[in-house]
């Protein structure tokens, strides 16, 4: 967790295999599943990130991923801080 000027950023970082840019581009779309879409090895409807993104956006925040194939991924979201009163 990191405090910035007018927002707070929460990041989840792994040290896995990471992912390609083309994968990253579709990550927040509905029903997107890494790998073959008919391969149900990985559980899930492919809606988790979509819903997360929608929730964050509804809060006026942002969600993104930073990743490089072979060097892990970092998923981040931000929330705006309430204005100082």
């Amino acid at each position, binding site marked *: 967790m990191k405090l910035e000027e007018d927002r707070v950023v929460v990041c989840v970082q792994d*040290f896995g295999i990471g992912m390609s840019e083309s994968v990253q581009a579709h990550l927040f779309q509905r029903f997107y599943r890494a790998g073959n879409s008919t391969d149900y090895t990985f559980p899930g409807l492919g809606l988790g990130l979509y819903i997360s993104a*929608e929730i964050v956006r509804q*809060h006026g925040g942002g969600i993104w991923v930073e990743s490089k194939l072979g060097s892990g991924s970092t998923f981040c979201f931000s929330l705006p801080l309430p204005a100082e009163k």
Partner: protein
Amino acid sequence: MLKLIRDELRSELRNALYQAAQRGLPVNSAPLHVRTDEGSETVRIHVRPVIGGPQDGLGFLLVVFEPATENLTLTEQAISVSEEDAAQHLEEEVVRLRAQLRASNEQHEFQAEELKAGNEELQAMNEELRSATEELETSKEELQSINEELSTVNQELKVNKAGGPESRLVASVFLDITGRRQAEETLRQNENQFRTLANAVPQIIWSNEAGGKANYFNQRWYDYSGLSYEESYGPGWQAIVHPEDAPASIAHWQEALAAGSIFDVEYRLRRRDGAYRWFIGRNVPLHDKGGNITGWFGSATDIEELKEAQEAVRESAERLRITMESAVDYAIIGMNPSGIIESWSRGAERIFNWKEAEALDQYTSLIFTPEDCAKSAPEAELQTALAHGVALDERWHVRKDGTRFFMSGVVRPIYDGTLRGFVKVARDLTRERRGEELFRLNEERYRIALQSAEMGAWDWDVMADKVIWNEQHYHILGLPVFDTPGNGAAFLEFVHPDDLPYIRSVIATAINETGILQVEFRIIRRDNGEVRWMAGFARSVAQDENGRCTRMIGVMYDITERKRIEEQKEEFIGIASHELKTPLTSIKAYTEILEEILEDEANSEGLPLVQKLDEQIERLTELVRTLLDVTAMRAGRFELKKTTFNLLELLQEKAADIQVQAPQQLVLQGSEKVNVRADRERIGQVVNNLLANEISTPLIHKKYCFA
């Protein structure tokens, strides 16, 4: 005024004017009768000097014609014109007129005199010319007679020698000697004249004895050659002939000498400084009356500059020829005024496959297709060239083997005072033409592809804000085809008002940042007001130095049908989730009851199974909830229940849960208390999702850093 006035008043008026002018006093005439159309009238003439007096005739005269009545206002101070006065003035006037006449007569005579003098001068000049001509004639005759005398003298000298002491001849000799002296004198004079002349001309002049020995040279020779008379004498001249030219020149001279014919040669002669210059040398035999050669007259004219000019012309012609020959990509064809081929370049040989020898003397139609020949295209081309100074030759031509190719060129007439012919310069454009065709074909393919995909295409010049749409684009918007709107603003008019802010923002982002536009939006058709869904994709194809897009090309196509199916799908998912939720709740409830019963019975076999069942029900419930969430979000029915809470606490909770569920290595960084105003449950869901996303990816050696 005197001209204009009626006859019966003229003399009176003149008289009155004269008097008024002379005396400087007003003059009134007696009543005068005037015949008018109505009958007769009586008038008086009053003349009054207005300014100035009689001196120098300056000033104005006021003339009043007054119908004669009893009331004569102007007569008081006036002088009446008496008959006597009138006569006197008339006489004076006559005298004056006469004087004037004489003066003008004199003037005329003077001019005539001058004219005559001019004429005489001309005549005198003519005379002079004539006499000059005559003098010339005389001189010529004199020369002739001198010549004759000379020959006579010669003759008589011979006779004298041969004749000996015969007395009759002595007298004649005596006489003739007198003539000879005179002749000698004339000869000397002639010779002097000749020398002067010979030295005055720019040519080198010499003479040879009958046998060929050169015995006289003009000053120019000495100046040029730097040789002395002794050095030049006889065949001495040969020394300065260029070694390359000497053998031929000398041989030629010997021939001329032997034949007594004119010797004519071009050779280089060495100047005193060692430089050679080209000369035309000419030796003409001189004959006596009997036709015998008495000597030779020679001249050499410097033609070095002429040669240089010739050389320059030859060189430039050569250069032109080389240029023409090396321009193998171009056919350069010369024709005479009737279109007969007179020159045929290497390029023409290469392009048409006709050899020069084959093409020469052929009519220009040689390279035209039979169809064009039938249409008189070759003639039309030349006529156009004549009429406009140039004719375009852009047509299919034929090679020797009958194959055709597209050629582009021009035909121009060549003038040199009169029409000398035509020149055609042309290039084989087949390859370019093929390229053009290929390009057209490609364009056609794209057009067909876009049309069959029902895709509208556009090309936007961002800087000038000009948009070009294809046909389909107009169809999509419900506009008559090519009713061009011209710019971006015109397009935005079609966008659904609800989507407008969104469209504006994505366009701005594409232009200023990404260069890529990918968008779904609604338009309102112009023809029927129907709302249609559109998908748009575009890419920047040109950027300015700041990376800002200056030109963008894109497509737009109708996705209304897709959207409808999608909506149906959403609806189906919504309904399905709802329908699943109800039995699921019941199952969950029954499972809980079953669990309680088994616990009470302490059924160690059934209990773990029911717990597993419960887990699976939880999972199913979660899935259904997710689907319901998505449906709500899509339908815009998703609401947040915002509270103020500590984000760090939430993260700690979630981290603890994860640690329990799956004991991964998880490190939580950051310890600041941050209060946010948000939907605590939903944010928790986000955190769960992010963590679950990681965890559900089956990877070994994973390490999490939860910041």
